[in-house]
């Protein structure tokens, strides 16, 4: 390692346009990156990670501007360099891997032509050289059919493969530095592993420096030599990975780690009859069958976690229970009696029993109605409350979700933070005085600290009202924290079900095993160990 760093950013300020005014996004951040080093950039949404990553290329998005500080890449001052000089660097010496590969590949050109583009116009290779080189890199990225996959168009290739093809493309000119902007965030856990492993290998093999941007601590622990934490455009803390994981210094950093510590108390085994029982449900959208013979029970005071990756049918199961999608076969029992399959045929008393909380609080609350009406309407409809009684009920509900009634009752959803909106979703469900609440990925759109608050609140309410929860999630950490019973789903069928203790102790069904082992852990050696373990039996 030489003394002069590859990239050095000093006291950087970036602003974004908001109407006529400019608001600060990055507020005086320093960053140093040496050759061959991988720096992990961690932060919650809105922390300015992507903006900072792009600034390392001397690039600011439309509506943003770099307003202060300096960016020196290998002796070149990127703030003073001409556009032409910066163009020479981009793609050739600094490359970028975007979060959504599907949107970032041009739909009009073949993958291999997009690969060859930068080497050609930077005059590094001929077309023939670039194409044969592409095949080699596709192979290294463990893409299936490396000789042919490049001749496809982006829409003909799956998401995980596109993400690897994009990493190969970034490597085309053998750059000194690659910016990875959340490259695995949009992928399922089992796909994520393959992409992470491929990225890590190739970066090591070519001794490329990288800035790895993500919000996932466990992922960054596998990828980075050093970690830097950002909070609202400011640097919180920086240290090498092992030190950071073992001994975080700042309170904010510690709080990021602490999230994983919440786990609810063990519940006694279910003794009474279930509230809701799903029996032999098969369901289809048109001609495609999406659920195959699903059966499970939900008991009062207990939480059933339904786990699976995208497309596994977990949300569809919820749609069958609520009556939005009448099943092709099988039935849903409420207190032992079959519910009408279509929600429109159910009575108000039946509808009231089962309420729903949604993933995206933004679209789950009508932005034009005040909280008083959002929360009050179910109470008015189902319990017939009016006037003063209704107002008192709304205030009591706001109290329950730990929001000050006087301050919030007349607000609109737009005036709340993400976590507060999700609390309103909970209050609306509670207002109906239900017995079962279906929680559809309720924490996955939230930052980690906020997630923890929501989980604790749900736990508290469950204890108070003996609520049954059906918790739909793809996140096993959440399952570990809140579940009593677990249902694992894949391709529309149940792979395994049982109590939490049974699920997390071997032996596992093969898919459960794959799922469990694919969830990144904080241990920096986790990925290496896992890959070694998966290799050895074969």
């Amino acid at each position, binding site marked *: 390692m030489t003394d002069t760093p590859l990239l050095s950013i000093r006291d950087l300020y970036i602003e974004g346009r908001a109407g*006529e005014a400019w608001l600060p996004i990055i507020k005086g951040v320093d960053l140093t990156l040496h050759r061959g080093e991988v720096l992990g950039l961690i932060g919650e949404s809105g922390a300015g990670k992507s903006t900072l990553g792009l600034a390392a290329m001397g690039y600011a998005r439309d509506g943003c501007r770099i307003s202060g500080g300096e960016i020196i890449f290998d002796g070149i001052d990127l703030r003073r360099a001409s556009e032409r000089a910066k163009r020479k660097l981009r793609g050739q010496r600094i490359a970028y891997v975007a979060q959504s590969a599907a949107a970032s590949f041009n739909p009009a050109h073949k993958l291999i032509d997009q690969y060859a583009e930068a080497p050609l116009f930077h005059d590094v290779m001929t077309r023939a050289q670039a194409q044969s080189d592409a095949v080699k890199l596709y192979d290294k990225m463990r893409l299936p059919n490396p000789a042919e996959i490049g001749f496809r168009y982006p829409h003909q290739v799956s998401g995980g493969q596109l993400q690897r093809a994009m990493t190969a493309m970034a490597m085309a000119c053998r750059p000194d530095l690659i910016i990875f902007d959340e490259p695995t965030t949009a992928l399922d856990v089992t796909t994520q592993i393959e992409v992470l492993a491929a990225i890590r290998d190739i970066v090591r093999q070519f001794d490329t420096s990288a800035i790895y941007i993500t919000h996932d601590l466990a992922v960054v622990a596998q990828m980075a030599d050093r970690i830097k934490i950002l909070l609202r455009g400011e640097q919180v803390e920086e240290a090498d990975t092992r030190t950071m994981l073992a001994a975080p210094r700042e309170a904010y950093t510690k709080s990021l780690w602490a999230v994983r510590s919440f786990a609810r108390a063990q519940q006694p085994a279910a003794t009474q009859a279930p509230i809701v029982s799903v029996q032999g449900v098969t369901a289809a959208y048109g001609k495609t069958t999406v659920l195959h013979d699903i059966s499970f029970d939900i008991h009062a005071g207990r939480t059933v976690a339904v786990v699976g990756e995208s497309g596994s049918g977990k949300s569809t199961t919820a749609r069958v229970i609520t009556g939005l999608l009448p099943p092709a076969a099988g039935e849903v029992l409420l207190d032992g009696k079959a519910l009408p399959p279509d929600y429109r045929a159910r009575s108000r008393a039946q509808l009231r029993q089962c309420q729903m909380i949604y993933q995206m609080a933004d*679209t789950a609350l009508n932005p034009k109605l005040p909280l008083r*009406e959002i929360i009050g309407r179910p109470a008015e409809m189902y319990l017939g409350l009016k006037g003063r009684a209704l107002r008192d009920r709304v205030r009591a509900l706001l109290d329950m979700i730990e929001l000050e009634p006087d301050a919030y009752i007349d607000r609109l959803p737009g005036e709340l933070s993400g976590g507060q909106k999700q609390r309103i979703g909970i209050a609306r469900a509670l207002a109906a005085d239900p017995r079962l609440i279906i929680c559809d990925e309720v924490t996955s759109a939230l930052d980690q600290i906020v997630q923890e608050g929501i989980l604790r609140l749900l736990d508290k309410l469950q204890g108070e009202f003996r609520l049954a929860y059906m918790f739909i999630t793809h996140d096993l950490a959440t399952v570990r924290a809140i579940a009593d019973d677990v249902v694992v789903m894949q391709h529309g069928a149940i792979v395994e079900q049982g109590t939490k203790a049974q699920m997390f102790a071997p032996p596992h069904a093969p898919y459960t095993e794959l799922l469990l082992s694919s969830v990144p852990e904080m241990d920096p050696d986790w990925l290496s160990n896992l890959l070694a373990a998966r290799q050895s039996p074969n």
Partner: protein
Amino acid sequence: MSLPVFLILFLISSFALAFVFRAGLSRALPHNQAIIARDMPLTAAFGIMVIAVYLFVAIFAPLLAPFAEREVVGSQFQPWGGAHPLGTDRLGRDMLSRLIYGARNTVGIAFATTALAFVVGAFLGIWAALRGGWLDQVLSRFVDALMAIPSLIFSLLLLTIFGTSVLTLILVIAAVDATRVYRISRSVAQGIVVMDYIEAARLRGEGTWYLIRHEILPNALAPLVAEFGLRFCFVFLTISSLSFLGLGIKPPMADWGSMVRDNATLITFGDITPLLPAGAIALLTVAVNFVVDWQLHRASGLKE
């Protein structure tokens, strides 16, 4: 005075007026509205100012006009000046008075037509989006078929059949325009209907009327109001064109489109009088478009 000079003078003076108007507005309004007024572009300020003037003229037409709407008060085609500041028309009616009454008739009829088209089109559009299924299919295919015929051509066909009175004019244009309103309301409502809060309300057991009134309409209002402005411009231009062609509002009722037609011969003598009613039409449409454009821009800016 040559045309370019006139245009430049007109532009400069209207910008100056808009500037003063905006400054006055941001003083007169309460604080939070004053900020909106202060930040609006000059074009929008100009638009609001023009719309206000037209409204004033339309409401107080009888007080402002020096002569009656249909009265013959002098010889035909008198030049500007004297008792008739803008001269007289082909039959010797006062041009200025007819222009002022025209604000009432032309704008009023266009507004009534647009409102009618909106009530029908928006209701059906939202209803179709909410119900979906066969109702949506039947209505949408029917509207598609009607929209495959250009609106002016379809209006002309219907006017041939039903004759050309003011009432048939309103009904025909409203019917043709309702198809366009249906299309846009349906697509706006479809964007809202897929939201989780609508699903939540449905699962709660809410009826159609509650869903439309409390959940959909408040969220559809902003785009629909902007669309109302655009549709108004369109209807206003269509009615003016029809009147100009002699197929819309007819004399003796004072109307800007037919006034252009009536006095068009003057143009060949280099007299710009017939351009005044045409300009009155253009000015109002420009004004409404400026305001709508600003609103759309604001709405898209707020989302980001």
